[in-house]
């Protein structure tokens, strides 16, 4: 990789700030953070309102409280924020951009989760915050999976499809839910927590599988005599 000569600390910081500004200029961070605040506000104001959805359980109508829907929206927002107006150029970007992208994803996720949890804590029972956090992990993983496969703008597809599946088949009647219904099981339920962790890890793995990493084994195989040279980029 290009070797940056050792800059003094203030210069390195200034360079980093310039990179960050350029990075953020191409992204819609502010509007998506605003959307997260709106989701949190909606949860705080009318979070317990319930929408009716048909279910597979006979003659059943499950009710989906609004806070569950907002939990899904807030988990998808940081992944949507990965999309940039210069996405076609960024396909060939390497380590520096990836580092900024990772930082951006981490900070946006933390900010969205904090906003949602903070505003939801005003109106929702504390134990439900644990349910929100667990479902956030699962939705986040699903959004990363969809985004890595289809493009960051389409990161909503897999969470929306999973939501429809969860809400239709996950209700087992009489206020009980299937074990895989991670958005509605009680706060101390372990199987759904494990499922949420598995989905989150799958999403993070999908995120880390950049085109470089996917081609690296093939490229190493093409150059058998030069094993010492690592493939470019990370």
């Amino acid at each position, binding site marked *: 990789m290009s070797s940056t000569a050792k800059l003094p600390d203030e210069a390195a910081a200034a360079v980093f700030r310039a990179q960050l500004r350029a990075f953020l200029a191409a992204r819609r961070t502010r509007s998506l953070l605003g959307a997260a605040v709106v989701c949190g506000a909606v949860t705080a104001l009318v979070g317990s309102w319930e929408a*009716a*959805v*048909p279910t*597979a359980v006979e*003659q059943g*109508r499950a009710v989906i409280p609004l806070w569950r829907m907002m939990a*899904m929206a807030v988990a998808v927002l940081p992944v949507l924020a990965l999309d940039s107006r210069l996405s076609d150029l960024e396909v060939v970007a390497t380590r520096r951009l990836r580092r900024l992208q990772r930082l951006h994803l981490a900070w946006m996720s933390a900010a969205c989760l904090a906003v949602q949890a903070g505003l939801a804590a005003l109106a929702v029972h504390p134990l439900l915050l644990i349910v929100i956090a667990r479902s956030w992990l699962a939705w986040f993983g699903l959004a990363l999976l969809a985004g890595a496969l289809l493009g960051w*703008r389409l990161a909503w597809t897999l969470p*929306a499809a999973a939501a429809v599946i969860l809400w239709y088949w996950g209700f087992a009647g009489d206020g009980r839910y299937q074990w895989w219904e991670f958005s509605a099981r009680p706060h101390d339920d372990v199987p759904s927590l494990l499922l949420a962790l598995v989905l989150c890890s799958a999403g993070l793995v999908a995120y880390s599988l950049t085109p470089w990493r996917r081609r690296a084994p093939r490229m190493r195989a093409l150059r058998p005599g030069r094993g010492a040279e690592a493939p470019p980029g990370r």
Partner: protein
Amino acid sequence: MKALWLHVRNSPLRWALPVLVTLDLAVLLLRGRHWIGVWPETGAAGQIPAYLVGVLGAGASAWASAAPTRHGVAEQLSASRVHPALLEGHRLAATAVIMLVPYLLGQLVAGALTVRTNPPGVHLFLGYLAHGVFVTLLCVCLGWAVGKLFGSVLASLVASLGCLVLMGLMDQWTGFIVLTGRPDVAIDPGALLLRFGMIAVLLVTLPWMNGGPRRTLALVPVPAFLGIMVVLFAAPVVVDREPPGDDAVCVAGRTTLCLWPEHEKYLPVLRELGARLDRLPAAFTLPPRINEFGVERVRVVDGQGNEFFDDEQGPPFFYILEGSPWSSAGDIGTAISAETFTFEDRARCAWGRLTDADDGRLLAVGAWLEAYLVGGGAPDYRTNAPPRIQQAWAVGRAVATDRPLDEQFNWAEQEVKHLRVQYCEAAG
């Protein structure tokens, strides 16, 4: 038409079609199958996927609607020789066509499963099918409008969740979601025509949502949406049907049991139940006729000239819920108990003096009657009745499952005679 087909072939949603078709068929088939063989239930079961696929469809429609801004060709389209509204109209029509394909395929599969037994009542199926088309088009239009107002990143998420929230609100206020197709109700053609009229207005106004600031764009579909809200409130889509009169299918016996003609698939089950009814001991007084709900209804005109159905009058009725024999047996058993024990006769009976122990025996007889009429097996419904009542029921059901038939009849006759002697003047 060539232009429309061109738009359909090149729509970004054609890749979503396999997923939506799979989801529609899964929602239709991966649930109870009691609806097969009854046309109104088939139509209702076939239109349930419209709500769920509609939630995803609203997101997909928003994606298609935001395509020009996504690819940066908004300016080229506004300068085209074809009027921009016509272009948008073609794209909207292509989106609607693609969104209708999974729904219509699902209804085709549902109809094919029911047409094998060829029951009566196809017009009821068509009513539910049309209602599902309305729901799908409403979701598409909602997604399209949201896609024009929000950037292409947020639009789909907002459209999906907004569609879900709107459907929930509409269901709370107007009963928007139709879940079952009982034969005593049907989709009102007049209300359906009004809905389609409003959707047509909406489909015609949405293509004008292009060019211009978002504030003016947001105002364009408002009149049509308001019209739809008004229609949803003012004209309920599910209405009672007229009683079938002579078309009702009946099982003769000590009691005549009558069904809606659309429910003819349950006739064998009802015949077996009627045979078991005929063998009941003489201690039980049977009502002359028990109908399925709605087969015979008494029309009452009150003081102000309002007409309504009074279900307190007329012969007793039973429901067949989700094809379960327990629902009909339970209601028929209740009707027989009411006729045998004459709870309403205050002149000759004093049920107000009922002791707890005798209440338990009464409940046990009722539970035995229900279990006997079904012909065995465990109840397929859950109850949250108090434990005392559930224990009394368990006693009755144990008699129905454990003892031979003669002993059951003896036990039942003893209980009925004891209760009638205790609380009513005439014995037996």
